[in-house]
Structures are given as C-alpha cells and as structure tokens.
C-alpha cells in the first residue's frame, strides 16, 4: 500500500462523489427539496411599510393552506431593494443567480420592477408582481413567467371617469407627479373621463418626488374647475390632502383620486381627507364575509391592520398555491404551472378575480369616500375592469 496509490484512490473517490453530485441536483431538487421563494421588496425607505405588508400577506396565505407548496417545504430568501431602480437588476440577480430561487416575488416600485422584469425575461424565473403597476410588464413586455396580482397603473383611474361625470363634475383639472406611474394613471383617467363626456381643463404636473404643492394649488384655485382628479401616494399624498384642505379648496372643488391617494395615510391626513372620493380594487371597509374574515385573521396573526398591500401579498400566495398544487410541487413543469395560474379564479378579500391573457387581474373597482379616517365603500365604480394588455404577444 504505497502513499501514491492511497492518494490516487482517495482522489478518485472524492471526484466520483463530487461529479455524481453535479449530475443529480436538478432531479433531486425537484421532488424532495424545499421550494425556494425569494422576496425582493422594499424593507427600508419610504415603502418599507408596503414591503412588510406584502410579505405578511403572502406568508399568511401559505400558512393557512398548511405551510407547504404542492406538498413541499418552503425556504425563504429576502433582498431589500431599497426602492432603488439603479440596483434593480443586481438585486434580482442575487436572488436568481446566487440564491437560485424558484419564485421571485417583487416588487413595489415600478422602476425597480423593470430591473426584475429584465432578469425574469432573461432567466425564465417565475416572477409574481405583488404591487408594481407599470404597464409594460403586462403589455408590450408581457412574459409567460410573469404574473401580476395587484393592478396596472391605469386600472383605478379607468373607473374614475364615469363616476365623476355621473356626479355632474364635467370639467376637471388633473394633477400628479411627472413620472411613469403618474403618466400611466393619467392614461386611464383621460380615456374614461373623455369617454364619459368630461373635459380635462388642465393637466398639471410636478417633478417627482417634489411635495411643494402650494404653487399648483394656487393655479387650481384660479382655474376654478368642477373637480380635481389626481394620483399621489405615500407621504406626498398625505401632504397633498392636508395642503388641499388648508388652502380651502376642499370646500368648493371636489377632490377625486386613484385610491392610493388615501391608502395608509388617513391617520396622517386627519380631517383634511374627509369627503375625498377615490377608486380602487380594494377598501379596508369592504363589507363582505371574506374580507371580514381576512382582516380578523391578519390582525390576530400580525397585531396590525391589513391594507391593500397585504391583500395583494395574500393573493400572490393564493395564486402560487393554486399553481403549485396543480403541478404537485413540480415547479419545473412550467407549461402546466403557468396554465394553472392563468386559469385560476382567486377568492380574494377584494372579491373574486381572474387573470387576463396578459397576466394582469380582471377585477371590480370600488368607489370609496373618506369618512372619519376610513375609506367607506359607497358602490362599485366599475365591474370587471381589465387592463388593455396592448402589445402583448402571448396566448
């Protein structure tokens, strides 16, 4: 027994073991290993609240159905996208290349979404969008492996036009930030408002994320329209509501908005928001058994009140469960997986909704009025609102 022979045999054994490991991984992983779910969400910054809510909603959906996907255990990975579009691709690649996730759930900010979208289209990883409403993701750049469970930026405002004209507000001023989400929200508003017979007297915009509204509020006062329609979200929305009321405009000019104007900011805006009318695919006060149960369960689990972002995260979980169950956990069976998710009807707290051909929800839009720190649903603004999916060459 020479030393050289010992070394050679042992090396051969090691190499043999290693190479057999290399040959088997995909087969081994597909059946008995854990499903790798990656969250790419904002955990810091302005949208941190939303990131946490989405993840909470998703986990709740999974745990309600037994904590497994198609019978397989789940391993979670997280990346904080910091709402930074410049690092979108790099962060998405961390989940896809380094952590090798089977599903990428993200994200909130549309700018970051474009980075994820690119990585999703190149790598083929299943991407579920729990919020970002950027149009191209389910229009010209739609992809079989990308599904959205939230909304497209123009969906809420598509339901706004008729609601405004029905109330006699035929001359309106539109105001928003000059960025993609604002432009796309305007697209829906312009389409629905002009179709219903309304006239857009002026279109005002300010650079994102500038929140000095005084100059434009003064402009609005001098124009004297019947109503103002807008798109703002987050801290900026709270400030806009307060500034609008502080300028006394709420007494004479009705304020309408895409629902995000009054989401998560009613405590901060206070009485300034009373009477504001918005359209959105959900409302905390939606009086259905499904929603009531969801809200109770969420509050019990997380000691927090859920919001639309939690619902979107929850629905993402429901969608993934439907898909995973249909393929019995074999997420590599892409054709069957996608087909199952395309044909799914999601029994959501927002109401039942289905997937459009371009993989965006077809859902009812509710008309809500702010009363006493709550978005009270006063009716359905429009049923089964679908994004146009223009330019999508799929299915």
């Amino acid at each position, binding site marked *: 027994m020479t030393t050289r022979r010992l070394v050679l045999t042992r090396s051969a054994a090691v190499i043999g073991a290693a190479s057999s490991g290399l040959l088997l991984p995909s087969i081994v992983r597909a059946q008995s290993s854990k499903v790798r779910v990656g969250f790419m969400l904002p955990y*810091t*910054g*302005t949208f*941190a*609240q939303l990131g*946490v809510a989405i993840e909470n909603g998703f986990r709740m959906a999974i745990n309600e159905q037994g904590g497994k996907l198609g019978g397989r255990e789940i391993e979670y990975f997280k990346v904080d996208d910091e709402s930074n579009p410049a690092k979108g691709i790099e962060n998405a690649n961390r989940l896809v290349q380094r952590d090798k996730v089977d599903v990428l759930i993200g994200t909130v900010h549309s700018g970051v979404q474009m980075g994820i979208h690119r990585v999703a289209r190149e790598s083929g990883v299943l991407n579920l969008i729990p919020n970002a409403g950027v149009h191209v993701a389910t229009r010209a750049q739609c992809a079989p492996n990308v599904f959205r469970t939230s909304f497209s930026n123009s969906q809420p405002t598509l339901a706004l036009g008729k609601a405004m004209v029905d109330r006699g507000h035929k001359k309106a001023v539109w105001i928003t930030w*000059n960025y993609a989400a604002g432009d796309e929200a305007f697209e829906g508003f312009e389409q629905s408002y002009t179709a219903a017979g309304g006239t857009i007297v002026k279109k*005002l*915009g*300010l*650079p994102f*994320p*500038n*929140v*000095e509204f*005084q*100059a*434009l*509020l*003064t*402009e609005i*006062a*001098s124009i*004297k329209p019947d109503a103002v329609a807008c798109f703002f979200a*987050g*801290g900026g929305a*709270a*400030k806009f509501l*307060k*500034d609008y009321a*502080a*300028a*006394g*405009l709420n*007494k*004479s*000019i009705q304020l309408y908005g895409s629902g995000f104007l009054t989401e*998560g*900011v009613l*405590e*901060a*805006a*206070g009485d300034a928001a009373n009477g504001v009318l918005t359209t959105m695919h959900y409302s905390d006060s939606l009086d259905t058994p499904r929603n009531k149960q969801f809200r109770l369960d969420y509050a019990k689990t997380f000691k927090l009140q859920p919001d639309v972002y939690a619902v979107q995260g929850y629905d993402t979980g429901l969608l993934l469960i439907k898909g995973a169950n249909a393929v019995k956990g074999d997420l590599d069976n892409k054709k069957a997986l996608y087909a199952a998710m395309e044909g799914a009807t999601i029994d959501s707290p927002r109401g039942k909704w289905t997937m459009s051909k371009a993989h965006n929800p077809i859902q009812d839009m509710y008309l809500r009025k702010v009363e006493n720190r709550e978005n009270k649903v006063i009716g359905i603004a429009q049923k089964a609102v679908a994004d146009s999916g223009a330019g999508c060459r799929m299915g």
Partner: protein
Amino acid sequence: MDFANFLIQLLNSLQYGLLLFMLAAGLTLIFGIMGVVNLAHGSFYMLGAYLAWALTAQFNSLTLAIVVGCVLALAFGWLLEWLLFRHFYQRDHLDQVLLTFGLIYIFEELRSILWGDDVHSVAVPEAVSQSIQLTENLSYPVYRLVVSGVCIALALGLYGLISKTRLGMKIRAGAFNREMAESLGINIRLIHGVVFALGVTLAAIAGMVAAPISSVYPGMGGSVLIMCFVVVVIGGIGSVRGALVAALLVGLVDTFGKVLVPQIAGMAVYMLMAGVLLYKPEGLFKQ
C-alpha cells in the same frame, strides 16, 4: 396670470424660500466654518420632524415640543461633533462624504427602529390654525405665515449672533485663520462644537416647525438635502447672507417654474445654479 395670482405665488415662493434658508443656514455654517461636507444634514431635518411628532404626542403642545426638541438637538449635535466630526476637519472632503453618507443610512435605520416606518402628522396648534381668505376659493393657512415668521426671526438672530456678538467674532476669526485665532487664546475646539450644534439645531428646528405642513415620513430628509446643497452652492459656501438670497431665489424659481414652465420645472433650479456658477464660480457671496 393675473396680479392677485402673482402676489399669491410670490407669497408661496417666499414661504418656501425662508424654510429652505433655515435648513441651508446650518449647512453653510458647518461647511464654511469647519470645512466639513455634511450629507447627513437632511437627516437632522428628519430628526426634527420626528421629534416634533413624538414630543407633541407626549406633551400635547407643539410649542413645548419645539423647545424640548431644540435642547435635545443641541445636545445631539454637540455629542455628534465630539464623537465623530471633530476628527474629520483636517481630512479630505471625500472622507467626510463617506462618513456622512454612511450616517444617512444609520440615521434612517435608527429612525425606523425608534419610530417605525409609517407616515405621521403633527397637528397645527389651535391658536394659529385659521386660514386667511385670499380669493373666493383659495385661503392661506395662518400657520404658514407663522413658519415664515420663525424663519425670519431666526435669520435675524443668526445675523445678530455672527456680526454683533463676541462669540460671532470668535467664530469668524476661527474660520478666517484657525492657527492665529488659537494662538490668540480663542478656544477653537469649543467654538467648533458650538457651531456644529447650532447647525444641527437649525436643521432640526426647520423640521419641527415644518412638520405640521409637511407630514412626517421616512426619507423626508433626502429630498430637502439636494435643495439645501443647491442653495449653499448658489449662495456661496460659508455665507449666511448668501444662503438667504439663494434660498429666496430658489423659492421663486421653483414656484414660478412649476406654474409657467412645468415641463422643465424639475430642471429649472439646477439651471439657475449652473447659470450662477458660470458667472460667479464661488457663489453669489464670498464668505
């Protein structure tokens, strides 16, 4: 735009400009006197806003909250200078940028740990919560006038401090020639601590006073920081008078830019800065 509208827009620019001045004054002092580039200045603004929110909830009075907040900000500024900044006066500007950039992240996380990530509001004090009717459908909140008043008072106070008091004289001497001032017996280390604490407090006061009109939310420091630097650069580094003039200019350009040329409103202020620098590379007023 009719005359009444023009006047109202002028009022809007004045109010915005004065608030910017309060922020920029602190930054220009720190930059001018100690030569430190402080990117974390916006975080002090955010600190002020969150302090206003937390303390008003505690004491039920915004005025008391501001007073207590001032004291806390002074102490915080002093501590920060003693702990960190004093070791960076002689260092390269890049080192200072790295330090203060890191501080931004640290402060954001601390804020998230201490106070969470939600959007909050601070109620305008009852006494000044009315509005003045300007036109038939536009009214102007009295509180905004109060904010402008506070900014003007602070501007005058700062002017008085720098030009008319012994402390101001020592500050100016130390900025002009540190070694000479030291050899004359002026305690430059103490002066620097005072100036830094003052700069931080000015930013915090801006945040506290503006909290009722701006809402309190994560990342609020970032957006004002850029404008702050623009004001300091236009006005001339180290010149408080320059900061005032520049802040009013920026207020004018930003307000009228949004109304008259909305397509390039985002660029208007930077075009102003570029224009000023072309003719006066050191800013409008040299220190």
